[in-house]
């Protein structure tokens, strides 16, 4: 069971770290000061959560790897984050859309995970759930403002939807590793969550006057470490200092 739990923790922490890093790229580039602060605040929540999950993963693995080892010393094919998280920020509309699709998933996922039989995981999830409520409120309000805003803002949001909707399938990818953990009451069943997510997203898209792309081929492969070309660039930037100066401290 330790092996499965370790893999599972990596998937969760990688997804948090990668989208957290993406959001941090907005630092100093936000369209207005308040949004700069909002996006980087949200980024902190994700990176903080990744830190807690990596730390726990290191304990479960019990080979002495720290949270930094796990974040900075693994290669692209050893990362298992969902494919949506690594998509580029694009314009503000694409960042908001990626965030909304993620938050709408996380609000249900972390609520279920907070009931996990693994106490540490449940504790981290309960803590995160409170923060996700703020994230979702923020991204939802922007979805409505941009979607039901001007012709320009609606077009940009629609273009973003056409571009990245195909990566949402990877949020729900599952394998035999999960089956073991679901049976043990540690991991929630993603098919239930997918149903809740789809209902929320459909309602939101309608309210925001957007058209859901039809006949989309969902991109997958992250559970085997297969990613879009964007992940390599993120890792190169994020890991460069740690790899150039191993073990360096502030």
């Amino acid at each position, binding site marked *: 069971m330790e092996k499965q739990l370790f893999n599972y923790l990596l998937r969760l922490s990688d997804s948090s770290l990668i989208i957290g890093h993406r959001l941090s790229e907005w630092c100093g580039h936000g369209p207005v000061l*308040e*949004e700069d*602060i*909002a996006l980087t*605040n*949200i*980024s*902190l*929540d*994700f*990176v*903080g*959560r990744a*830190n*807690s999950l990596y730390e726990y993963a290191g304990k479960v693995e019990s080979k002495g790897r720290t949270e930094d080892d796990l974040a900075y010393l693994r290669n692209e094919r050893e990362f298992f984050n969902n494919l949506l998280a690594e998509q580029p920020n694009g314009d503000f509309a694409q960042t908001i859309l990626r965030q909304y699709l993620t938050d709408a998933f996380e609000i249900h996922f972390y609520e279920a995970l907070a009931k996990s039989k693994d*106490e*540490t995981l*449940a*504790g*981290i999830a*309960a*803590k*995160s759930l*409170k*923060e996700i*409520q*703020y994230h979702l*409120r*923020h991204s939802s309000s922007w979805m409505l403002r941009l979607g039901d805003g001007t012709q320009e803002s609606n077009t940009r949001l629609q273009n973003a939807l056409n571009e990245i909707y195909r990566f949402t399938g990877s949020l729900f990818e599952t394998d035999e590793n999960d089956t073991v953990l679901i049976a043990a009451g540690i991991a929630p069943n993603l098919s239930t969550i997918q149903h809740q997510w789809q209902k929320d997203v459909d309602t939101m898209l309608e309210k925001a006057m957007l058209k859901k792309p039809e006949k989309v081929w969902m991109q997958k492969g992250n559970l085997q470490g297969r990613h879009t070309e964007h992940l390599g660039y993120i890792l190169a930037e994020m890991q460069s200092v740690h790899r150039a100066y191993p073990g360096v401290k502030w």
Partner: protein
Amino acid sequence: MKKLKMTTKEVRTLLSQIPDPEIPVITIEELGILRDVNFLNDECVITITPTYSGCPAMKAIEQDIIALLKENGIEKVNVKSVFSPAWTTDWLSEAAKDKLRQYGISPPDKTTSDKSVLTGIQKTVKCPQCNSENTELVSQFGSTACKALYKCKDCLEPFDLFKCH
């Protein structure tokens, strides 16, 4: 001469003087960050809990704790972070809320058992300067993770709201 062995109660009293690095008018005890003090053999185990997962003040708090204990002759210190039960603004005492108000931060005035504060925006937010309820949300995210940015429409002062969490 320093006492060689302190009781857990004495250690707790000592640590309860440590101010929060971001909001120095209240202590880590008043904020509910300091959860537990224990001795395991000769090691002093301090349990703290973060307000938000990514709160950057946690490292500073940990260092403050270690430094203060060292000054008082306790060398072996282990600072543990726990997530459960999750931190909530319900743990802020009325005295702590008063201190926040005087410092210019509007304290959370509801408890989290009132679900409306979690699902929607807090209904009334009072200006800590002039007490007016005629205020407006500027940004859901403020200068730190635990605060939101507001503006008073009467005295025109901007201020932070300590978010109900």
